[in-house]
């Protein structure tokens, strides 16, 4: 049962669907495995595309966008950092919609990402800021309300957006 301090995976998935997203492109991440990725993989309403590396997913999502299809790239912070050049070129410079959801592997509980002792966690949001990418911290279930308007804006205004998971989603 979700509480005010928890992040409900079901609520996030519900918002993803409400945003018109049909495809989830992913590389597995322990932060999102149980609460998001396994339920998504079993969900007949979502088409799940497994990729070998995150920058493949950047291209696939943007190409789906060219076809008028909405998608979400579900990855780990390390994969996000590994894909910076693809995100920079294909989403930022080309002004394409790209919706990302990034789990923060290694983040300490009850600490803001930017306050983390882990470099790989601490630099994610500043990196997004440097690239001018709109981002939303999903910390509690109520914060999932940001998903639908942000995805709509990304596709209507042709820009990337990133949802940073402040904690591991539960049920």
């Amino acid at each position: 049962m979700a509480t005010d301090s928890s992040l409900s995976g079901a609520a996030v998935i519900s918002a993803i669907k409400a945003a018109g997203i049909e495809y989830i492109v992913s590389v597995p991440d322990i932060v999102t495995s149980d609460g998001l990725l396994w339920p998504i993989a079993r969900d007949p309403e979502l088409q799940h595309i497994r990729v070998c590396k995150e920058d493949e997913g950047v291209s696939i999502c943007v190409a789906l966008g060219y076809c008028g299809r909405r998608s979400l790239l579900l990855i780990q912070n390390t994969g996000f950092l590994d894909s910076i050049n693809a995100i920079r070129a294909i989403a930022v410079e080309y002004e394409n919609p790209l919706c990302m959801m990034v789990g923060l592997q290694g983040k300490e509980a009850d600490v803001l990402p930017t306050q983390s002792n882990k470099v790989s966690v601490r630099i994610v949001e500043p990196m997004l800021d440097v690239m001018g990418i709109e981002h939303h911290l999903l910390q509690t279930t109520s914060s999932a309300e940001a998903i639908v308007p942000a995805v709509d804006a990304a596709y209507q205004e042709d820009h990337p957006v990133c949802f940073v998971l402040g904690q591991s989603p539960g049920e």
Partner: protein
Amino acid sequence: MSDMKRMKRDAALKIIAEHVDDSLVVAAYQAAFEWIIIRPSDCNLIATGAMGLVSSHGLGLAIGRPDRKVIVFDGDGSLLMNLGSLVTVGEVEPKNFYHFVCNNGVYEANGSHPTPGSDKIDFAGLASAAGYASTDMFDDLDDLSARIPDVLSRQGPVFVDFRVERGESYPQDYGYMHGAEHRAAFKAALRAS
């Protein structure tokens, strides 16, 4: 660079262009600059941003538009940066996906230094092992003319080791490649058909 037999790239692309109708074509670097002159069309996409990602763009298009053939002109150096995409294509099994790797054995846009393993690597073998439905190899223009209709009529994913070398010189319009006008035209073409 090995002494492998190769076709002039532009001559080979011209042969393929004779058999391409409304297919979506995604192309990388040198092949891209030649292709957009050989087959000018708003159905061409050459804006793939970062090296290595042309195959993944093609896969996304093939998934998003299963009603259209998607032809990818990759580079050998480019594919080496994204070998995992072969496995992803093998997993998705797009029936409308035709993946040509313009294998010239060098990084032509960056000083023509040899690509790693250029005299050893078996790209078609890698694609076959990754799950492509069929693979082929061309190093002769007459053979290409004779057999390309069959290759393009097969059910995908199809992989072709396309052994080529530089032919005639073509303008390298990076401004067009990365410009907004090109992407807008491609998107409009997809919406219209």
